């Protein structure tokens, strides 16, 4: 690893560790929320950015992770971390199941299939009152580790950080791995990838499973932070806001996932005054990004840089006395 790179990582580590010391209780809550959303955005980078598959049903995986962990911990008294892992695994199992339609249909049809999945999950959780509390919802205990309960979000931040950072690094690494290279090859040319040994069914199933696992973990972390789960949280709107977050951050980039997580946390704080207009603003933002910055905020520095370069090149060429005229 190069020296600037090590310095960069060290700086990021210091900032991440010091961040909560600067804020209030509410800001700790926002920090945790941003990390939890980042994990979802990472899962969408893997699924949409790398594997080239669409999902507008990620609220379903999020719900499964949240309720699976909450139920296990409340009903069996399992430790918090076991609950989180269980949440990820339950979501992953359903991720593998959702991959089945993905092997047959693509594009709009897959989008509809994932949407249907999320609606079924939400409705089933709502109806299954004995397990989820149905309309009333259910209470979820605060996170605890080795007998210590984290009653505020300051300590919990470090637990979430310790879980999210490895997934971030994995997502960064993925395109350099054999698995990631072959997954991306499958997106770029399914025919060529398969001709060179990539088993499409296996790779797409793996991508959906991994993506659902991350989102399930995120759901579990969310459940223990928020303390009370209600099924209406996991609606189509939630799925769509996840998608918006991933696109606005940058669907091809793990850094974009972080920016997306921050965006989805912060935007409602600013847009709250607009009340019912909020959804319109989200929609317009999404359209604007798709049109003008399809690779999201993460691609902004490069875009600005090439823009400056181009302008500079234009200036120098027009400054030349014998420059070609445009007539």
């Amino acid at each position, binding site marked *: 690893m190069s020296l600037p790179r090590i310095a960069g990582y060290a700086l990021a580590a210091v900032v991440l560790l010091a961040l909560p010391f600067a804020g209030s209780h509410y800001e700790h809550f926002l920090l945790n929320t941003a990390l939890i959303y980042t994990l979802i955005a990472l899962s969408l980078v893997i699924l949409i950015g790398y594997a080239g598959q669409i999902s507008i049903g990620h609220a379903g995986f999020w719900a499964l992770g949240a309720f699976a962990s909450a139920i296990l911990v409340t009903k069996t008294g399992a430790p918090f971390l076991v609950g989180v892992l269980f949440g990820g695994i339950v979501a992953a199992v359903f991720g593998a199941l959702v991959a089945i339609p993905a092997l047959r249909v693509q594009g709009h049809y897959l989008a509809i299939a994932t949407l249907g999945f999320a609606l079924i999950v939400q409705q089933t959780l709502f109806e299954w009152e004995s397990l989820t509390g149905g309309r009333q919802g259910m209470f979820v205990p605060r996170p605890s580790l080795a007998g210590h309960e984290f009653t505020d979000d300051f300590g919990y931040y470090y637990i979430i950080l310790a879980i999210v950072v490895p997934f971030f690094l*994995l997502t960064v*690494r*993925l395109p*350099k*791995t*054999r*698995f990631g*290279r*072959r997954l*991306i*090859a499958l997106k*770029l*040319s399914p*025919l*060529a*990838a*398969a*001709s*060179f*040994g*990539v*088993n*499409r069914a296996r790779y797409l199933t793996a991508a959906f499973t991994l993506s659902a696992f991350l989102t399930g973990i995120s759901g579990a972390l969310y459940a223990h932070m928020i303390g009370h789960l209600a099924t209406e949280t996991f609606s189509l709107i939630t799925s769509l806001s996840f998608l918006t977050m991933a696109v606005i951050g940058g669907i091809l980039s793990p850094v974009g996932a972080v920016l997306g997580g921050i965006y989805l946390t912060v935007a409602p704080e600013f847009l709250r005054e607009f009340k019912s207009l909020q959804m319109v603003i989200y929609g317009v933002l999404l359209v604007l990004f798709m049109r003008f910055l399809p690779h999201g905020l993460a691609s902004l520095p490069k875009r600005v840089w090439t823009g400056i370069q181009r302008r500079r090149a234009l200036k120098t060429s027009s400054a030349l006395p014998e420059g070609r005229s445009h007539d």
Partner: protein
Amino acid sequence: MTDRTPHLFVRDLSLSFAGLKALKDVTFSVPPASIFGLIGPNGAGKTTLLNCLTRIYTPNTGSIMFGETRVLDQPLHAMSSLGIARTFQNLELFGVETALDNVLIGALSNTPVSSIADLLGLPSARKALRDARERAHAALALMGIAEVADRTVATLAYGVQKRVELARALVTEPRLLLLDEPAAGLNPDETKALADVLRDLRDTKKITIILVEHDMSLVMNVCDELLVLDHGEVITQDVPAVVRKNPKVIMAYLGEEDSDAA
């Protein structure tokens, strides 16, 4: 899997698309370590046959034996592990990636790595990937395009892209190599270099090469045997010198308004 290249036997292959018969009872065999030309007028079924041999299409009837292996029982993604690799008529490259990364996908097809080691970046996986990258570099060098390794493949000239595709196929160390019009878009010098490469692969690596090609001088020059197709049917299989004089072959070509034999 043995190192010896086996015989390829194709028997009674038929394929229809919506009632149109693209292949009719195609039977032929290809001896190991030979260059085998597949020729015929446009629409004769050459690419369709190639797509059957590489499991992109599934014929309605017939069998394909590569040594002891029933090729039609295998899925598309098993081709590279059977030692079957190909290039595509209209290029199937990963356009936004570099030439090296394109060839690397070929190299990774026969680089087994455990998933855990791969995802965690353990030393065994790192070494496997480094080896694969070296082989990809070597394949590009073999095709004489080592200098474009880090260029985005979509920005390269057509003839260079064709060589990247060939490098991606060769890096898998195939025993059967299927090339769909490899000389299209190449200049005479490049075509001559290609002919040398093909002969060298046959003689030193004992690879069987099946060549679909419209460039008749190349076909007549390098092929050990030719199979002539017309309207999905086999007209004849023989050495080039004999095929050239076959009246049915001449008819098939002259009967077409778009004569590629000219």
